[in-house]
């Protein structure tokens, strides 16, 4: 979940008032935010809604709080629509067809009238990072560049460029490199170059005089792309393959910047292909369509007979304009949001806007019958028997190492399920049996008073071609007895007792070629000629691998097969 840091003075000026930390804790849930701590005068805020990128900035959170407390929506007058196109002057960006299939779109807007301070610069960099890495899938779908517009000669051009012949000095370096060299040598190139490095042409942004703006999504130029404290005129450009994500990000950032005191200057965007909004639009652009919700659905979902006015007022608190006709609430989605997928999303805004405290908890009266699963019922029966036999119940992790689950057990790994992306070799195998877990206990418990009689009823996983997943998960009982005098006779006594009380007639069959057991001292247990388990005396080679020095017997049963 996104976390941001903000200077409290900047944040409180955006809020229009100061809050104590306790007050923040109380009001933050309105924005699904949590106060994560503070460092001096820096507030750390965690944002829980991963589908609300507009809240991942100080300005966005402040907007939500201010709207909620004032019941007044923010108005932004710089958005164009299809029919209402704002003046873009000579500001224009032209997408060339050579970028299609590589990174289809580049859009932009400009801003002026606010001297960039260190706080504002840090805030912009943070927004850029959160939006591009979380919402933009680590720049794959959104890359954002901020430039010094004073140095730009319009129109700006976006194209697919020859990665070897196109050269410029990237930010953070002093020498000229080709686009391909940037991918290989520049730190940002190494981090993000892979997004485009398999394409024949690389995305490239330059102005009408041929001056480089950037190589999106990797790095800005060292000249036009080096924004500093004191700059006043900015050009903000976004590129990526999904137009709506770019438009939303531009909307969020332009609203944030307007809140911080910038005047937003629209830019005309000429696409290289026809889009659902036409071949040319002016950005920031209001692209969202309205969403509606039956008021009856809202009332039923919330369990509260809210009036139309209450619904409208609740939505206003959330910064959402709405109208109600014939029992249908229609909302005008705020410029900086695009998370209304379903009527349910409107219902949630009504809930938060109305105040969660205003909904009284009440239990549903419908009768349902409770029950444990059959496997749980049976496991408990087995557990009672094992405890009666003097065994201690253990509980183990299900992930372990190859050494524990395969090598130390002297078994083959053909039925063992491995993790493809283990974090460490300590957790790269899903356990195929309870027995290695029991032996691990023995290996770390030499200090514990003997005898060691332990068991576990838990899950194991192994390969099974017949299943859709090629694996099966089973509930298994495993038990082990370790002492200076314990052997096959004890093992068979335990098994016999267990099977008697589980009311199972069984036969035994000698186990051949199982490295876990001493040859001639292990047997399979069959019920109705189906194998349900096995037991035996642990082979000293296994004990040696685990570093155990006491003799041991062990047994394992498939609870699901006994059920």
């Amino acid at each position, binding site marked *: 979940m996104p976390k941001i840091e903000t200077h409290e003075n900047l944040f409180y000026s955006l809020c229009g008032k100061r809050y104590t930390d306790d007050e923040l804790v109380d009001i933050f849930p309105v924005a*699904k935010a949590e106060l994560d701590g503070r460092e001096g005068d820096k507030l750390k805020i965690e944002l829980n809604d*991963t589908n*609300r990128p507009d809240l991942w900035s100080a300005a966005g959170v402040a907007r939500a709080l201010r709207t909620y407390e004032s019941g007044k929506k923010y108005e932004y007058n710089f958005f164009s629509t299809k029919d209402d196109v704002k003046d873009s002057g000579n500001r224009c960006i032209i997408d060339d067809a050579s970028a299609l299939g590589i990174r289809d779109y580049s859009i932009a807007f400009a801003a002026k009238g606010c001297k960039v301070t260190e706080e504002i610069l840090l805030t912009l960099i943070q927004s850029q990072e959160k939006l591009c890495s*979380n919402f933009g*899938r680590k720049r794959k*779908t959104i890359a954002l560049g901020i430039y010094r517009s004073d140095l730009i000669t319009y129109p700006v051009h976006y194209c697919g460029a020859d990665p070897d012949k196109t050269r410029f000095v990237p930010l953070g370096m002093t020498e000229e490199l080709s686009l391909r060299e940037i991918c290989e040598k520049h730190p940002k190139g190494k981090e993000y170059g892979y997004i485009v490095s398999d394409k024949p042409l690389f995305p490239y942004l330059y102005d009408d005089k041929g001056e480089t703006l950037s190589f999106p999504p990797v790095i800005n130029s060292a000249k036009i792309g080096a924004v500093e404290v004191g700059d006043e005129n900015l050009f903000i450009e976004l590129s990526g393959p999904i137009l709506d994500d770019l438009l939303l990000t531009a909307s969020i950032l332009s609203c944030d910047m307007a809140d911080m005191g910038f005047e937003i200057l629209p830019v005309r965007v000429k696409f290289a292909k026809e889009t659902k909004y036409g071949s040319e639009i002016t950005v920031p652009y209001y692209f969202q369509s309205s969403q509606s919700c039956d008021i009856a659905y809202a009332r039923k979902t919330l*369990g*509260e007979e809210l009036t139309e006015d209450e619904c409208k007022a609740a939505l206003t608190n959330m910064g959402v304009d709405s109208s109600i006709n014939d029992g249908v609430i229609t909302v005008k989605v705020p410029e900086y949001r695009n998370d209304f*997928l*379903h009527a*349910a999303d409107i219902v*949630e805004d009504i*809930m938060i806007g109305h105040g*969660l405290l205003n*909904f009284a*908890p*009440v*239990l*549903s009266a*419908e*009768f*349902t*019958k*409770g*029950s*444990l*699963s059959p*496997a*749980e019922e049976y496991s*408990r029966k087995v557990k009672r028997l*094992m*405890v009666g*036999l*003097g065994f*201690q*119940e*253990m*509980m183990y*992790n299900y*992930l372990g190492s190859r050494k524990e689950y395969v090598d130390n057990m002297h078994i083959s790994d053909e039925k063992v399920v491995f*993790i*493809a*992306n283990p974090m460490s070799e300590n957790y790269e195998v*899903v356990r195929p049996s309870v027995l290695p877990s029991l032996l*691990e206990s*023995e290996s*770390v418990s030499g200090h*514990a*008073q003997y005898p*060691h*009689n*332990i068991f576990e009823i838990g*899950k194991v996983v192994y*390969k099974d071609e017949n299943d*859709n*997943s*090629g*694996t*099966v*998960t089973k509930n298994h009982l495993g038990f082990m007895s370790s002492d200076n005098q314990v052997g096959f006779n004890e093992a068979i006594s335990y098994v016999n007792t267990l099977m008697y009380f589980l009311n199972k007639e069984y036969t035994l069959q000698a186990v051949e070629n199982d490295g876990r057991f001493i040859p001639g001292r292990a047997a399979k247990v069959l019920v109705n000629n189906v194998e349900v388990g096995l037991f035996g005396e642990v082979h000293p080679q296994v004990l040696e691998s685990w570093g155990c020095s006491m003799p041991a017997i062990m047994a394992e049963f498939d609870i699901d097969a006994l059920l």
Partner: protein
Amino acid sequence: MDIDVKNLHPLEVRLLRAVKMGEDITAERIIKELDYKVGQCNQAFSWLSAKGLIVEKNRVKYAFYELTDTGKSQAELGLPVERIFTFLKENGAHTLPEIAASLSLEQSDVGSSFGQLSGAKCAALNGERKAELISDSLPNDVVIARALINKALNAPLMEADLTKEEKNAIKGLAKKRGAAASTFKYVEKEDVTYTLTSDGQEVKDALLKANITGEEFGLLTPQMIQSGSWKNGTFRPYGLNAPVSRIIPGRTNAYGDYLMWVKDKLVSLGFEEFDGPLVENEFWNGDALFMPQFHSARDIHDVYYIKDPVHCKEIEEPWLSRVAKTHEDGGDTGSRGWGYTFDHEFTRRQVMRSQGTVLSAHQLPKAKVPGKYFGVARCFRYDQVDATHGADFYQTEGIVVGKDVNLRNLLGLLKMFAEEVAGAEEVKYVPGYFPFTEPSIEVHIKHPKLGWFELGGSGIFRPEVTRAMGLDVPVLAWGLGIDRMALMHLGLNDLRELFTPDIESVRMRRGN
């Protein structure tokens, strides 16, 4: 006196009863009168002194010589010097090695004994370097030593009783330590005389009053029952404060007990338990829950993939088509969908179950209306293992399916969990976010010990989730953070401890 007379050992009881105020209490007397062994007598003295019931009056040091085993055999066979004297007398002159061989003596013993004889002018080496007698009688100190040995056969020789000559004669034959090869062992001892204290008298009176004799029966044996001999005496009462020996019982696991308690609680609230496999696929683990396939929580750094088989064979229809359509344009769920092309290969990719909600997703197509379900599901996350993150862990999750269930019912349910399962004093609800619920609620509780914390997350399943699964009624979904409460219940503060392999720590673990 703060002594429970029942706690006194029979050796103490009998001794106390046998002595009177002012009398001397000595080992000699007790051994004789009560037939104690020396060790028993010493134990009784030591315990009673420690309790202040008898006190030392004086102590006398003394020393004595007693025959070792070697000494006892020498008393019969003769000292080496006596044997050499007799040998030479009967067989005439011989070399020293010949004497050693004939008498089976060590060369060194023969050497020193001959030295003793020659020193006393009883023997000498002749011209052939053979030893021969030059006197008819043994040296005087040997005669004295022989007399002492004979005397010592009856009783140890008190050092104080020996003459100066005798002391000289015995010196070379005795050792204090390592005396096995010597004739005598020299022993130093103390005789301690005790006397009864007033506390001792008090306890003695209590014993008499309670009629405790020290002759009471200890263990009741089958023989006593069969013979009826138990009727001829009384049983020794046992003290209650003696050290207790350890019993290792068969036991359930304390964490398992807690999970059973939670399950029973949920069953009592009308929930039916569900379960499922640990190996899942992207479809059920995420797609069916309307998490877009590009969602950041579905990244390689969040979920464990299976190496082989990488994909499952198929995803059940019609769920696959319905879910794919819902992601793309909302299908018939009333949603506009995520607006991307659903990846039919990605959806078959196999993962370790990463969230318990998967079980709820599986339940939706077969859920009863009304129906309540829960599961305690082992889940796996790609996380660094530490005190607050396990490689695998339990999540407690469930759903409530009903024609008219709503937000207020969800709040009611959370309140009930907070009170019944968590013992909460206060409950607070805040809006939350989960990809599969809308609205979403987090429940925070004030716990008597832990203070405020997040008990769980919940919400009403998005219609994109339920309708795609063919269910046209609302479904309340909830998950509880049980482990935090389990740790508190068990007095632990490290999640890894819940699954410890350490036998001793599991044996000793118990709930609060």
